[in-house]
């Protein structure tokens, strides 16, 4: 009760309202984007260019300026969660994460987000010729089957052979190449990426009606395989956390980055308020003693 009284002091009220307003503002895009009835698609961003420093990625909606999306400091091997965005055309731009504050985003490509569809916009190729490639992700599998696809994002190996359960999925995959989806039987497999000298092996459990993208990445002096779950269950956008392999900073998949920021803001508010209350109660306790 006393806390409530203290909380409504003008200065504190301003802080609380400010943070609450920020939280609501951050949450609005989530609320507007998430309903199934809204015309939305899903997009995630990936950085698969080993020698390219971290980038900020911007998506500008042709028709809706409030639908602009910014992802800061996307580093190699990082895959963002899927984010619901209003369907339509977007211009995608990049900016070096360490670039001068006044430097401008550089337009790279466009992506047409169709309602109910999912896409990965991936930075591919070497730094000198990095391009943003739009991959149309799949959400549907034949009943009782799974789908897999492979992206070759290793610069250390010129070509890579990828096998799953001992069977060849793709051979002679060059840097920046990706396969189409292949329908497979579900099961627990050993997946292997092999170049001329380096290899990576991983054990994966591919369940029925899941869709996976395996990304072959550079890890210092070796290779790594990143297992991204594009969808779990037919017609469902994934709700799991994508394995971002090399220490990616991906948030919980299926949630919006802005929603995540809202939670952080709310958490900060609670923490600050709690700390203030704790200090005051400590002082009161000391005075009583």
């Amino acid at each position, binding site marked *: 009760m006393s806390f409530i009284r203290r909380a409504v002091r003008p200065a504190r009220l301003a802080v609380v309202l400010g943070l609450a307003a920020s939280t609501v503002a951050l949450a609005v895009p989530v609320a507007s984007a998430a309903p199934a009835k809204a015309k939305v698609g899903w997009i995630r961003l990936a950085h698969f260019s080993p020698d390219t420093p971290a980038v900020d990625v911007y998506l500008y909606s042709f*028709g809706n*300026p409030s639908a602009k999306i910014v992802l800061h400091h996307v580093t190699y091997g990082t895959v963002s969660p899927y984010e619901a965005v209003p369907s339509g*055309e977007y211009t995608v731009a990049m900016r070096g994460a360490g670039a001068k504050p006044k430097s401008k985003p550089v337009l790279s490509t466009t992506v047409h987000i169709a309602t109910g569809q999912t896409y990965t916009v991936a930075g591919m190729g070497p730094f000198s010729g990095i391009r943003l490639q739009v991959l149309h992700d799949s959400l549907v599998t034949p009943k009782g089957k799974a789908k897999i696809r492979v992206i070759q994002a290793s610069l250390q190996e010129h070509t890579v052979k990828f096998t799953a359960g001992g069977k060849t999925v793709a051979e002679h995959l060059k840097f920046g190449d990706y396969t189409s989806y292949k329908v497979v039987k579900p099961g627990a497999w050993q997946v292997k990426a092999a170049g001329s000298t380096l290899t990576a092996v991983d054990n994966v459990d591919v369940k029925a009606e899941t869709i996976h993208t395996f990304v072959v990445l550079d890890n210092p002096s070796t290779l790594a395989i990143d297992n991204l779950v594009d969808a779990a269950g037919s017609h469902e956008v994934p709700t799991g956390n994508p394995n971002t392999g090399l220490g990616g900073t991906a948030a919980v998949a299926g949630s919006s980055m802005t929603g995540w920021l809202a939670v952080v803001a709310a958490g900060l508010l609670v923490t600050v308020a709690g700390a203030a209350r704790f200090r005051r109660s400590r002082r009161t306790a000391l005075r009583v003693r």
Partner: protein
Amino acid sequence: MIGLVIVVFAAGALTMRLIGRNSPAASGHPAHPTGGAVAGAAETRSETAAWVTTEVSHGAIVACDPVMCNVLKQHGFPAGSMLPIASPANDPLGSAVVIADAAVRNYFGPRLKDEYAPVAIASFGSGTAQIQVLVIAADGALAYGKALQADQRARRLTGQELLGNPRITTSPAARADIASGQVDSRLLISLAPLAAQVHEVRIASFSPAAPGAAPGVPLRSMDLAVPDGTSASSYLAAAQSFLRAQRAPYLASTIDVTRLADGSRVLRVGFSAPSPLGLLGPPNSGKQPS
């Protein structure tokens, strides 16, 4: 006497042969041009060269017959970006555009448009002296026609989306150009990010189509007006700064402040020809991937 007759006859025959070798018909040019026709053809060549030098990317390879190439060079088009066509054995594939004058038309006949280059992006002169600037269809004329149609459809759909952007306002004429899919995709793609950077974009007009351009060939240049209540200098500087930071294919060839007849200043943004196709997302990308 007989010897003299033989010598005179032989000299006459040799002269006729030399004249024949250097005649326009033999070199691919129309036969028997009159003095006026020659002057007219030269004028058309010069007009074409001026347009190509200004409007076509200097990084694009331009196929032309040696005479036309020479005129292009005189106008400042880089010699390294030319592919001279001196006989029917040299096809124009590998270039971005071909300048179809009488010589080039004679070399390839109907194959020129049916196979190599079906679409004119500009045309000058008339009759046999007409010169067309044609886009090369690397995958064949049929495929190019389909790609151009698909591109125009995508330009129309995304243009309509752009017209719903509250940060972008247009004159009625500019609105009609966007809505009908006439505007180059590079301009369309640049507009939403530019509006995000400078808060508002007012499109005063798009440049008219080049003379003789085929239907569906995009408009590649626009004039942006300074929004009301905005400092012209800072607005124009901010817009120029953003546009100049771009890279190919989104780096405009013209980013200049121009003063119009009414005294107002506009930012002229233009991209070079030929317009790339397929930059916009396909309108049918809602299909599930396999």
